[in-house]
């Protein structure tokens, strides 16, 4: 007994076991949310029966094919990826800025990506034919990525001196960037035609209604690549929590890590914004809840944030489709209604620490 007790690793203060169990729980939650999402909707269709047909090797009925494969499944896949991308972007950005209040949506990165996307939607027609042919369906996601990247870079430059980020500067710079991007977007709206205008309005509130396999084929790989890239960031972000100098002393190539983090945030946020518009608060609420539950170790925080973000957004999408069915709410409204109070609660709890 004594030998066993001595051989066992110290457990006081060790939250890795809890984090691993949380990962398993979140996987189950994601599956449940996915099932519920496929089963929910205006059209009558039995998921069990459709699966039964697939299992027996029979083709789906036309009705099942259209409702499940062409409408609900791309929407589910988009919801999962966008939710994961937003939550992971938030966690990475918070690690990069060394601050739990950083969020792509709050500090203008989402607005920058939005400006990029709107520019591409409205002015895309003016691209030289050769360039348009080259970028094709990638134009909007690429423009969103560039917009998000520029915004992240500007924000980092403005708010960080010698590796220290000022919260006040970051939030205020975020407001300014958001306002600037909003104004530029407003200008573009003047030149938009009626169809573009309808697209823009709905898109601006954030929605998964426009999800399609075509859009996902472009934005999906960008989000997946960006999220996979963050696996290499986890150790660096842990070190960065101790400060830039300490991270370097612990063997982390800090500058390279920061560049990679900014690219990942811009890629994930940009692609998410390109397919679904501005969906707020996922990036701040999800990592915050997980840090409370299992601690800030990014090796667990990042994958768990992807899972919780995915299931949360899919859940919000189910709500947005069922509350006023057969009409639907923009999902951005649902996440804001759920997320904004949580954000305020975080601010209240941090009152003493947040010296602006």
């Amino acid at each position, binding site marked *: 007994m004594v030998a066993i007790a001595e051989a066992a690793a110290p457990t006081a*203060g060790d*939250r890795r076991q809890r984090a691993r169990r949380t990962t398993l729980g979140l996987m189950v939650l994601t599956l449940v949310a996915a099932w519920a999402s496929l089963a929910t909707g205006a059209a009558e269709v039995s998921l069990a029966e459709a699966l039964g047909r697939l299992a027996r090797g029979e083709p789906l009925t036309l009705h099942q094919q259209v409702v499940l494969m062409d409408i609900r499944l791309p929407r589910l896949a988009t919801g999962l990826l966008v939710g994961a991308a937003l939550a992971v972007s938030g966690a990475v950005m918070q*690690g990069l800025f060394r601050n739990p209040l950083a969020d792509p949506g709050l500090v203008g990165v989402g607005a920058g990506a939005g400006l990029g996307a709107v520019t591409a939607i409205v002015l895309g027609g003016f691209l030289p034919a050769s360039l348009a042919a080259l970028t094709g369906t990638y134009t909007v996601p690429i423009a969103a990525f560039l917009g998000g990247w520029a915004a992240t870079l500007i924000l980092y430059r403005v708010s960080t001196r010698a590796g220290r980020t000022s919260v006040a500067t970051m939030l205020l710079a975020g407001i300014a960037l958001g306002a600037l991007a909003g104004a530029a977007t407003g200008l573009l709206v003047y030149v938009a035609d009626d169809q573009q205008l309808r697209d823009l309005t709905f898109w601006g509130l954030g929605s998964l209604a426009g999800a399609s396999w075509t859009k996902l084929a472009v934005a999906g790989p960008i989000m997946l690549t960006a999220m996979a890239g963050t696996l290499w960031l986890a150790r660096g972000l842990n070190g960065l929590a*101790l400060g830039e100098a*300490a991270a370097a*002393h*612990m063997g982390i190539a800090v500058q390279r890590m920061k560049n990679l983090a900014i690219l990942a945030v811009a890629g994930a946020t940009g692609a998410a914004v390109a397919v679904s518009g501005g969906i707020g608060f996922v990036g701040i609420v999800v990592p915050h809840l997980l840090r409370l539950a299992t601690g800030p170790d990014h090796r667990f925080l990042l994958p768990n944030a992807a899972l919780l973000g995915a299931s949360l957004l899919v859940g919000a999408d189910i709500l947005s489709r069922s509350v006023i069915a057969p009409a639907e709410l923009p999902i951005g409204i649902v996440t804001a209604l759920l997320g904004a109070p949580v954000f305020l609660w975080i601010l209240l709890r941090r009152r003493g620490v947040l010296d602006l």
Partner: protein
Amino acid sequence: MLEARDLTVRLGRRTILDGLDFLAHPGEVTVIVGPNGSGKTTLMRALTGEIAAEGRLSLDGTDPRGLRPWELARRRGVMAQFAGLAFPFTVLEVVRLGAEAGGQSGDAADARAGAALRRVDLEGHAARLYQELSGGEQARAQLARVLAQVWEPEGPEGPRWLFLDEPVASLDVAHQLQVMDLARDYARAGGGVIAVMHDLSLTATIADRVVLLDEGRAVAAGPSEEVLRSAVLEPVYRCRLDVIRLDDPPRLIVTPRPGTATLAGAAPGITASATAG
């Protein structure tokens, strides 16, 4: 051997270190002393490669500025004068980050983190959040983290080095002694220790070699008995300092004589403190 020749650091338009020579040997504790703003922290940051410096720099034969961060991390650990933590890690998690930076993982990292915590008397605090510790406890947790990174005083590349910037400034006396023992043990086992200190008596008990800085230059370097003398210290610290020799155990006590500070603004009769951080 850690050697710097003609080390010059300019920050902005100011020259902070001005052609400084520095030497430290593995197996020894080298203590850097000097008044506030004399460049102690800047010297540490230049020696560890944190900031750019002109001049020659050699860590056991290689220029540390040419090494990759992870190569350097295996050779030396650095405890900064001021340290913050952005997220609510537990004490154990913080120390384990050090063990992992030193190349350990899994159970080995846990075991080393536990041992490092014991070494600074923080075993019982492993599960607490670092951000909720007192200043002195945080300093000891940081020391444990750095120690866990370069736990073995000698590695395949040669001796390992501990850089400690004011490691005991916020500690009570017993924990100051514990940290001094830790530094001495590390050196006796073949590692090198370079520490910035303010307490000159404590410096005398631990230092194999003392380097005295004044306005970005090393004005004296050598064994304690050579450097910690009134004639050497007084012009630098600008007050009278009595150096008293005790016999049991043999040690030096360096203590300021009240009312002798000649700093601008020091009124006669007002006791000046020579120990401010």
